[in-house]
C-alpha cells in the first residue's frame, strides 16, 4: 500500500495502480473521455491530465502509476483551460443533431462540453462527406465519431473479435471493419455500449426512443449460464397504447461487465398474457394430480426449481431434467475426487490466469462470457491458451496459442493424457500415481490422435504459468463417460492447483442441479414445464397453460461462476405462475421470491431475502451482484477407474451447436435474432462424405428428433463434422440438449434451399 495526496486528500493506493484508478476508487473525480476500466489505457483524449508536484507539465493520470508521497492536483485554471480546449476541438464540426441522436442525454460529449463551458466555437475545419454505414445489428455514423478508440480496444482486448480498426488519416480518420469490406464479427454490440457519442449505434434501436425516457430494469441475462448483468430498458409500447410496456433495448454496465449479442439484441422473448385463464388453470391442477413426472428445462429460476423440489417432496413426483441431471452427475463425481462440493474455477480466475486450457467446448458459441474472459487473460497477461477440440474454431485464432485436435468421443482419453502430462510428479496419492503411470499412452494417443509432441508442447508452455485454468465444456459433461471425466478433471484442481470451470450447458443448470433431486426417466403421465409432456406449461404461448418468460419474472439464477444473481420483472404478466399452481397444490407461498431465503444452505446457498441481494456497480468494488455459493467439504474417494475403450466415430458426424447469438428457443423467438435460418454448416470434406452439395435442403433425424435444414458449405471449417443447430426446435430442443453432442445420422436430401 502506498499513500498519495490528491487535491489535499490523502488516499491509499495499491502498488501498480495508476493515479486515475486510485482517484476513482477514493471517489475523486478526474474527467476522462476515452478511459474504459476494463481495457488498457487508450490515452487518446488527454482529458485526464493532472499536475504532479515536482513534475514538469501535465501528466496523464490514466497511464501514470501512483507513487508513494505523490502530490496530485486534478484541477487548476491551466488544467481547466487545457481541458476546455480539448473539448472545443472535439466539438469542431460535430453535427448539431442532438435533437435526434440516440445518445443525447447520455452523451459524454454533451456532458463534457457543458462541464467545460464550451459556449462558442472558435475553430473550424473544412469537412467532407462522411459515410453512414449499416450492418446487421450495428451502425456507424462517421460524422459523429470522436475517435476515442474505445470500441476498437474493447473489441480487441475484451471480446477478441478484433473486427474493427482505426483508419488513420488525420482529419479523415474513421473506424472501419478490419481486413474486410463489411463488418464480420460475433455481433456482441459491445462497441455500441462503450461508444461515448452516438457514432456506434444499434440499428434496431436507432431513433426509436431517447435515453432519458427509458426505465432501466436491472436484471440478469437469461440466455446462457453466465447470467451476465444487463438492464432491460422499457417504456410504453406505443403512443396510443394504454398502459402497455415494451422493452426497447438492453444496455449493460460496460465499465465493469460485458454482454454478448444474444443478451443485447435478444430481449423480447416475453409471453404476453393479459388475463388469468381459469379453465386452463383447472386443467393444469388436474394434470398435476394425475401426473407422476414433471419434466422441465434448466431455463428457470432457482425459486421455481425449489418449488418443483417441494412438490416432489409432497407428492413424490419424478423430476426429469436431463441436462441438469448430467451436470449434477458430473459435479457429484467431481466432488468425490476434489473433496469440495463445487469446482474451484470462476470467471475472474479465468481472466487472471496466465495459462488456460479449453477442453471439449466450442466456447465461442457455447458461452461468450467465458470466451471474453479468456480473451482478457490473453490480452492482459499474454496467457497461453490451449484449445482442445475436434474442430478448429477460426474465430478463436486471435487468442489461441495452441490448437490440439482430438478424435470425436475420445474426451476421456484426452483428459487422462492431459492429466499425465501436467500432473506427473505432483500427485502424492499412491492409487492415482499408479493410475497415471500405468496409462496406456500409446493406445490413447493413437485413438485420440493427440500426439506425444503436442502433450509435451502443452506441458512446456504451461510450466512457467502460475495461475492455470481449465475450462471443461459440454462435450465432457454430456459424455457417456462423464463421471469418469469429471473425476479426472478434479485431479487438476486437487493436485495441480489448476482452477477448473465446467461450463454449465444452460442458464440455470447449476442451480437446478443443486436444488432439485433429479430423476433420470419419465413415468406414465408427464407435466412438461417448457418441455414436452402430456400437459405442457409453456412460456412460448403454445402449451396448455401459459407461463411467464424469464424477463417477466423475478428470481435468481445460479451462474457457472457459482454466483446467485437476481433478475427482475421487466414486463408485466397477467396470467398464472408456477407459484400459483404450487399454492393450489398445497405448497404455499405468497410470492415466488419468498423461496429465495429457503434455498438449501447445505448446498452452499445463503439464507438471504431476495430484496437484500446486492446488485450495484461502483468504482471501488466493480460489479457487486448476488453472492457466491459456499464450497463445502465432501468425502474423498481416491480410487480411479481404468480408462474405458475409446469409441470411434467415422464418416459424417453432426455436432449439436447453435450459431453465434443463438442459445435455444428463447433467442429464436426474439424479433432481432429470430430471422436466422437454421443452417447445417459443414466443410467441403463433410459435403463429400455425406454426399451433399451446397444449398440443398436435408432432413435429419438426431436421436429420434426429426428436423429439416439447409446445408451450406463453410470454407472455414475442416474435417467431417458439421455444425447442426437446434435453436429452432421449440420445446423439443430440450430432448436433445442432454445427449452427447456428436451424433451420426442419416442425412436425406429433400430438395433445394429456395424451394
Amino acid at each position, binding site marked *: 500500500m502506498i499513500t498519495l495526496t490528491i487535491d489535499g486528500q490523502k488516499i491509499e493506493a495499491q502498488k501498480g495502480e495508476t493515479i486515475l484508478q486510485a482517484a476513482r476508487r477514493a471517489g475523486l473525480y478526474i474527467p476522462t473521455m476515452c478511459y474504459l476500466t476494463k481495457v488498457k489505457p487508450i490515452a487518446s483524449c488527454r482529458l485526464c491530465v493532472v499536475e504532479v508536484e515536482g513534475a514538469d507539465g501535465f501528466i496523464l493520470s490514466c497511464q501514470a502509476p501512483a507513487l508513494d508521497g505523490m502530490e496530485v492536483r486534478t484541477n487548476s485554471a491551466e488544467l481547466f483551460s487545457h481541458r476546455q480546449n480539448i473539448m472545443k476541438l472535439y466539438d469542431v464540426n460535430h453535427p448539431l443533431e*442532438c*435533437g435526434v441522436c440516440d445518445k443525447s442525454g447520455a452523451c459524454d460529449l454533451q456532458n463534457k462540453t457543458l462541464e467545460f463551458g464550451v459556449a462558442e466555437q*472558435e*475553430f*473550424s475545419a473544412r469537412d467532407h462527406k462522411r459515410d453512414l454505414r449499416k450492418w446487421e445489428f450495428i451502425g456507424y455514423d462517421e460524422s459523429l465519431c470522436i475517435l476515442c478508440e474505445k470500441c476498437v480496444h474493447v473489441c480487441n482486448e475484451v471480446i477478441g473479435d478484433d473486427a474493427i480498426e482505426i483508419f488513420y488519416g488525420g482529419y479523415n480518420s474513421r473506424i472501419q471493419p478490419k481486413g474486410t469490406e463489411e463488418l464480420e464479427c460475433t455481433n456482441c454490440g459491445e462497441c455500441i455500449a462503450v461508444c461515448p457519442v452516438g457514432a456506434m449505434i444499434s440499428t434496431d434501436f436507432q431513433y426509436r426512443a431517447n435515453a432519458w*425516457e427509458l426505465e432501466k430494469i436491472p436484471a440478469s441475462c437469461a440466455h446462457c449460464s453466465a447470467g451476465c448483468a444487463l438492464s432491460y430498458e422499457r417504456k410504453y409500447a406505443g403512443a396510443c397504447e394504454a398502459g402497455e410496456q415494451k422493452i426497447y433495448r438492453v444496455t449493460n454496465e460496460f465499465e465493469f461487465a460485458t454482454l454478448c449479442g444474444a443478451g443485447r439484441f435478444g430481449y423480447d422473448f416475453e409471453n404476453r398474457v393479459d388475463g388469468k385463464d381459469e379453465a386452463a388453470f383447472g386443467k393444469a391442477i388436474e394434470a398435476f394430480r394425475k401426473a407422476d413426472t414433471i419434466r422441465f428445462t434448466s431455463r428457470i429460476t432457482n425459486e421455481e426449481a425449489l418449488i418443483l423440489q417441494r412438490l416432489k417432496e409432497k407428492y413424490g413426483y419424478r423430476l426429469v431434467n436431463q441436462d441438469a441431471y448430467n451436470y449434477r452427475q458430473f459435479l457429484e463425481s467431481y466432488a468425490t475426487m476434489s473433496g469440495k462440493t463445487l469446482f474451484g474455477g470462476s470467471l475472474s480466475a479465468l481472466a487472471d490466469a496466465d495459462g488456460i486450457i479449453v477442453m471439449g467446448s466450442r466456447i465461442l458459441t457455447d458461452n461468450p462470457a467465458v470466451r471474453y474472459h479468456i480473451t482478457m487473460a490473453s490480452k492482459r497477461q499474454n496467457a497461453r491458451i490451449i484449445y482442445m477440440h475436434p474442430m478448429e474454431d477460426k474465430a478463436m485464432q486471435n487468442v489461441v496459442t495452441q490448437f490440439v485436435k482430438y478424435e470425436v468421443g475420445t474426451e476421456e482419453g484426452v483428459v487422462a493424457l492431459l492429466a499425465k502430462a501436467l500432473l506427473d510428479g505432483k500427485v502424492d496419492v499412491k492409487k492415482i500415481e499408479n493410475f497415471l503411470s500405468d496409462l496406456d499412452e500409446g493406445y490413447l494417443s493413437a485413438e485420440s490422435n493427440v500426439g506425444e509432441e503436442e502433450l509435451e508442447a502443452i506441458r512446456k508452455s504451461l510450466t512457467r504459468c502460475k495461475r492455470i485454468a481449465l475450462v471443461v465444456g459440454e462435450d465432457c459433461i454430456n459424455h457417456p463417460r462423464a463421471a469418469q471425466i469429471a473425476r479426472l478433471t478434479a485431479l487438476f484442481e486437487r493436485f495441480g492447483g489448476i482452477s477448473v470451470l465446467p461450463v454449465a450447458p444452460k442458464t440455470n443448470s447449476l442451480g437446478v442441479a443443486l436444488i432439485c433431486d433429479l430423476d433420470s426417466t419419465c413415468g406414465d403421465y408427464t407435466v412438461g414445464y417448457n418441455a414436452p409432456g402430456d400437459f405442457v406449461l409453456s412460456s412460448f404461448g403454445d402449451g396448455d397453460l401459459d407461463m411467464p418468460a424469464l424477463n417477466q419474472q423475478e428470481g435468481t439464477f445460479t451462474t457457472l461462476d457459482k454466483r446467485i444473481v437476481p433478475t427482475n420483472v421487466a414486463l408485466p404478466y397477467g396470467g398464472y405462475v408456477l407459484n400459483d399452481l404450487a399454492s393450489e397444490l398445497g405448497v404455499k407461498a405468497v410470492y415466488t421470491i419468498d423461496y429465495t431465503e429457503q434455498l438449501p444452505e447445505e448446498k452452499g446457498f445463503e439464507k438471504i431475502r431476495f430484496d437484500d441481494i446486492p446488485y450495484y456497480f461502483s468504482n471501488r468494488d466493480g460489479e457487486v451482484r448476488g453472492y457466491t455459493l459456499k464450497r463445502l467439504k465432501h468425502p474423498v474417494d481416491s480410487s480411479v477407474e481404468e480408462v474405458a475403450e475409446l469409441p470411434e466415430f467415422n464418416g459424417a458426424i453432426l455436432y449439436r451447436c447453435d450459431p453465434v447469438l443463438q442459445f435455444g428457443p428463447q433467442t429464436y423467438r426474439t424479433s432481432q435474432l429470430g430471422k436466422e435460418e437454421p443452417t447445417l454448416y459443414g466443410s467441403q470434406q463433410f459435403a463429400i462424405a455425406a454426399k451433399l452439395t451446397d444449398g440443398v435442403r436435408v432432413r435429419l433425424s438426431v436421436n429420434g428428433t426429426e428436423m429439416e435444414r439447409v446445408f451450406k458449405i463453410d470454407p472455414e471449417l475442416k474435417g467431417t463434422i458439421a455444425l447442426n443447430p437446434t435453436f429452432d426446435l421449440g420445446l423439443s430442443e430440450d430432448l436433445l440438449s442432454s445427449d452427447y453432442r456428436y451424433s451420426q445420422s442419416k442425412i436425406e436430401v429433400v430438395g433445394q434451399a429456395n424451394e
Partner: protein
Amino acid sequence: MSLEQFKDRNVMQNYTYIPVDNPPVEPIEKFKQVVKRTFKGELFVGLWVVFREMVRFNIHTVKYPMEKLPISPRYRAVHKLYRLLESGNERCIGCGLCEKICIANCIRMDTRYDENQRKEVTEYTINLGRCIFCGYCAEVCPELAIVHGQRYENASEQRAHFVLRDDILTPLDFLKEGKQEEFDGFGAVSPNADERIKKTPLAY
C-alpha cells in the same frame, strides 16, 4: 451565459403601492359606512347607466358563441403542430423534449428510422384531458413545431377525442393556401433573436 437574471426572484422590484383606505375597525365606524353606502343612491346610478345604454342600443356584450373576442397570441389553448413552409414536411424532429418537460405527463410520441435516414414521428398524442396548458412544450421545442393555438373550446363527449396528431397538425391544403401563420406567442423566437445568436464557424 449567466443565470443571474433568472435567479433574482425579488418580484416587487418595479411595483408601486396603491394607497387604500384602512377599513373601519370600531363598530360605530362600520355602522356609519353601511348607512353611507345604502343611502348614497349608488345603486340608482348604476341602474340609470344600464337603462341609458339599453335605450341607446349601445350594447357591449359579446354574443358568444356567435361572436368571439380576439385573444392574445400569447394565449395558451389547444396545441398546433406546424409544418415547414416550403417543403410541407413536419417541423417536428421527434427529439422528445416536449414529452420530457411536460409536467402533466400528457405527451407521447413514437419515432422510427425512416427510409431517408431521418427520424420520423409516426405517432404524436397530447392527452388534453390531462394537459394543464402550461406552455412548457411550446417553449422547449427547438423547432417551433409545437405551438399553442387559439382554439380554447375542447369539450367533447369522448376522451378519445383528446387528441390525435391529425387534429392539430396543419393540413397540407391549409399550408398551401398560406394559412399557417408564423407563431409569435409563447416560446416563439424573441424579436431580437438575430442579435443574440452566437455564430459557429462551420466550414461546410
